[in-house]
């Protein structure tokens, strides 16, 4: 495979992570636990969706098949989305949502940091912008994880349940696809496996303050990077794609 085609494919995978997590976050809008959080969560969602647009648009140009950001976001089948399973997990309660955000942000922060030295100028540019956005997500979601973990008895219990429910999906953050491997070798994208220490450190730090323990995960969940998704994903797509599928080929 040519490097440009490999990069396009890898960027679509990365774009999928951002689109799906942004979509999930946006589902909260108008239903947050307090009004201030009804402004914070859309801020994070807008960051995610903005990055998805950049990644898709660049990927669409590289693959040169005439697909724009919306073709990529809206007009693929479930098997063609390569987002990791973590980001598609339903919002659950506020503890689940904040923990999911922390897990993802704690990975993307070192990822974008490393990507600022990518051999590709465009990726450098995305990384420089994204690294600032994602640093804030770690702080915001991390603070909530601490607050809930070390809040009331109920909140600690809910936070503990969220950890059990979601931790098994974090391993997949560090997995790669064939095209990502090509990009890593060409120094276009960072190697996720090398980011594990930083991720561990962030999570350990937050968990220590939140009085949470990292669970043993005998059977990690994965499959998204191969396009094998959870049952909830089809429902997410049916909502996301509703307009484009019902009224094909129109301008909005």
């Amino acid at each position, binding site marked *: 495979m040519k490097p440009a085609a490999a990069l396009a494919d890898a960027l679509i995978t990365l774009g999928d992570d951002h689109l799906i997590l942004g979509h999930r976050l946006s589902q909260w809008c108008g239903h947050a636990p*307090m009004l201030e959080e009804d402004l*914070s969560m859309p801020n994070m969602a807008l960051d995610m969706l903005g990055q998805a647009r950049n990644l898709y648009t660049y990927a669409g140009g590289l693959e040169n098949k005439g697909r724009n950001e919306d073709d990529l976001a809206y007009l693929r089948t479930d098997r063609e989305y390569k987002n990791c399973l973590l980001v598609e997990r339903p919002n659950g309660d506020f503890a689940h949502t904040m923990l999911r955000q922390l897990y993802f942000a704690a990975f993307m922060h070192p990822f974008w940091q490393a990507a600022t030295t990518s051999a590709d100028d465009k990726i450098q540019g995305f990384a420089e912008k994204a690294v600032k956005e994602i640093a804030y997500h770690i702080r915001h979601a991390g603070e909530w994880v601490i607050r809930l973990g070390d809040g009331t008895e109920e909140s600690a219990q809910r936070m503990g349940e969220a950890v059990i429910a979601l931790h098994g999906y974090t391993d997949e953050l560090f997995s790669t696809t064939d095209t990502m491997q090509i990009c890593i070798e060409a120094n276009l994208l960072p190697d996720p496996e090398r980011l594990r220490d930083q991720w561990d450190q962030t999570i350990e730090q937050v968990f220590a303050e939140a009085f949470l323990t990292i669970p043993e995960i005998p059977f990690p969940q994965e499959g998204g990077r191969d396009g094998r998704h959870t049952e909830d994903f089809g429902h997410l797509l049916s909502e996301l794609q509703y307009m484009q599928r019902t009224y094909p080929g129109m301008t909005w």
Partner: protein
Amino acid sequence: MSTQHMPLWEVFIRPRNGLDHKHVGSIHAADSKMALQSARDVYTRREEGNSIWVVQSRDIIASDPDKAAENFDPAGDKVYRHPSFYDIPDDVGHM
């Protein structure tokens, strides 16, 4: 319904270096970290600033409006504090 209220905080934003922090509004938060993050998320969505102060509303001491007259009216007739009080020859130009 919670019985305890989320404390109220006042938010001050500095639009850019060289300017003062200015009161922009308030938010509710349980502690100072939360207050700063909420202030950031609520009041700087359109590049309104590069620095934030938050202070719990109950910590602000305000002057009594009933004493406004005795506090502030006495400054009204001290015209000699202003440059326009002094006459200088026109030829001097700007001073």
